[in-house]
């Protein structure tokens, strides 16, 4: 049978065979290995990406926990500061009270000492005045006695 355009079935089959061999060969030698390599590389980078994301998430969690801790620590510090201030105030009050008590004691002691001293001085002064008065009286007496005696003696002699 004369096929139009000189189509030759045998040559069509030969072309098919040739093309099948080429396609299969190219698939085995080029397409499959290169695609496998590309897939492996994509997988590798996907793994890296996943790991990076996981690490980022972990870092974010860590950051959040550190921030939380930092906040807690700050609150604790604030509380401790407030406690310390109260304690310091208490201690200062105590010291002040003690100092006042001490001062009052010192003052009362000083007062007592001053009163004792005054009393002593007064006593001494009284004694001294008494002594001086006595001495003066004695002297007066002495003076007056010796004059009378002299007068008597003189009178006696005259007689």
């Amino acid at each position, binding site marked *: 049978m004369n096929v139009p*355009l*000189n*189509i*030759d079935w*045998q*040559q*069509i*089959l*030969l*072309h*098919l065979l*040739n*093309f*099948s*061999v*080429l*396609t*299969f*060969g*190219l*698939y085995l*030698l*080029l*397409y*499959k*290995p*290169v*695609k496998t*390599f*590309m897939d492996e*590389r994509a997988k*590798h980078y996907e793994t890296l990406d996943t790991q990076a994301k996981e690490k980022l998430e972990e870092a974010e969690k860590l950051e959040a926990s550190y921030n939380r801790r930092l906040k807690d620590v700050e609150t604790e510090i604030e509380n401790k500061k407030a406690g310390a201030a109260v304690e310091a105030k208490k201690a200062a009050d105590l010291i002040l009270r003690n100092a006042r008590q001490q001062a009052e004691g010192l003052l009362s002691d000083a007062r007592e000492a001053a009163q004792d001293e005054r009393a002593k001085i007064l006593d001494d002064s009284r004694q001294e005045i008494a002594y001086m008065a006595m001495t003066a009286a004695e002297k007066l007496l002495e003076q007056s006695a010796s004059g009378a005696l002299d007068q008597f003696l003189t009178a006696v002699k005259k007689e």
Partner: protein
Amino acid sequence: MAIKNKKLITIIIWLAVILALFAGVFLTGNQGEKHETVKEMMRDAVLHDLNHISFLGIKEVNPAFISALVITAVLLISAAFIRLFFIPRLKYIPSKFQLLLEQMVGLFDNFAKTNSPHQNGFLGAYIFGAGMYIFFGTMFELIGFQAFTTEGYAISLPAPLSDINGAIAMGCLSYLIILIAGIVTNGFKGLGSTLKDFSMPLSMSFRLFGAMLSGVLVTELVYYYLSLSFVLPVIVGVLFTLLHAIIQTYVLVMLTASTYGEATKPKKKQLSRHSPVSGGFQN
């Protein structure tokens, strides 16, 4: 100064070579006389009834089949070399050649994945083979590989797909693959939806044949006449062939991939218009 002299010498040598070739062309006269008229040549390009080449002494075949064999051999040997010496040294940060390889494989793989999202493993491999065959087959024209016909004339081998047998083989194989994929994926429905496009093997084959043949005819016409064989082949030969190769590769690959995707798309069960929805208005 020395560089200027070097440039001048190069230009002089180049001009001398061109003049010598010109002189050679005109002085050798009609030694390469054509054994066929332009009409016979054109007719042979379409019908392949004049020039035949003996295939291993078994059968007389069209020159395009020999082209197909040469291309297959060259591509497979190159692929084997690449597989043995280059692919084991592929790196995560690619070199220029690796980038080219990856682009080639990635291009066809993406074509397959985009056009046939449900099933694309085999399609990628098939369109890679078909694309390489069409592209390098068309570019093969440029080399002007010589062969002897059974009548003893020297001819330059044409693109394999400019032969109607080659184009039919390619078109029918593509359709066959789509048909099988449709049956494997969707059973009888897949067969039906693929058979619906029964004109596809014809259109694929003859579109490819017509496109390739037009390129061959224009090129043959240009090279037939001596006066047209200067400067013009740079445009016709190189630019047209290159564009031609890219366009034909794209067209066949695209058509095959999209039809394959259509055939392998999972079919949804359609609701019957006549059967009422349960719980609807029914008295």
